[in-house]
């Protein structure tokens, strides 16, 4: 199943400046694995120790995956993934 992924400015150096890419996957994790195959280096910017970095937000359509099943969140045809930097500080 092909899923479109909207890539943040910071990661576009990996995607040859492409803002939107299409990759395969039935879950968010599978999409990230496929992203890594097509655009090496992306994965470690997104996840570590099997979890999404706290500096990163990943959404399926309008929903932050932290409030769903995280990386195991299942995808349906037509879903879009958006990646954004998480903004926080002290």
């Amino acid at each position, binding site marked *: 199943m092909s899923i479109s992924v909207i890539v943040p*400015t*910071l990661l576009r150096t990996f995607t040859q400046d492409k803002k939107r890419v299409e990759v395969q996957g039935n879950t968010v994790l599978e999409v990230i694995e496929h992203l890594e195959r097509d655009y090496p280096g992306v994965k470690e910017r997104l996840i570590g120790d099997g979890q999404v970095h706290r*500096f990163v*937000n990943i*959404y399926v359509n*309008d929903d*932050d995956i*932290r409030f769903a099943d995280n990386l195991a969140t299942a995808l349906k045809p037509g879903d879009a993934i*958006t990646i*954004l*930097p*998480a*903004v*926080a*500080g*002290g």
Partner: protein
Amino acid sequence: MLSLRVGLLEAMLEQARRDHPLETCGIIAAPLGGKVAERLIAMENASRSPTFFSFDPRQQLRVWRELDERDEECRVIYHSHTASVAYPSADDVRYAGDPSVHYVIVSTLPDIEVPIRSFRIIDHKVTEESIYIVR
């Protein structure tokens, strides 16, 4: 150097004083590739804390989509310090991942000499910059 539309410094200060003793936060957008940060968007501090701020992820997604539709980019991320000077904290440096963003900090300490300062934070290295006001 950060180029900022006239009036926005005052708007950030006012918002920070209004939200004090909680930290306030927001962004200023600029037209893609444009020189001047023009449009202030106040964000909710989802942490509602006097010592920490975080954007609400859903609000952030809405705002970022809107930037995209308007051909704008996030040029400034600002937040307040309620009990310290306007200089990045260790948490600020840890979270500041974007070398293209100007990080503005507003201090709401009473009688502080310089209540707003702007920084670039690249590879965890903090560099202060001047703020240029554009009429």
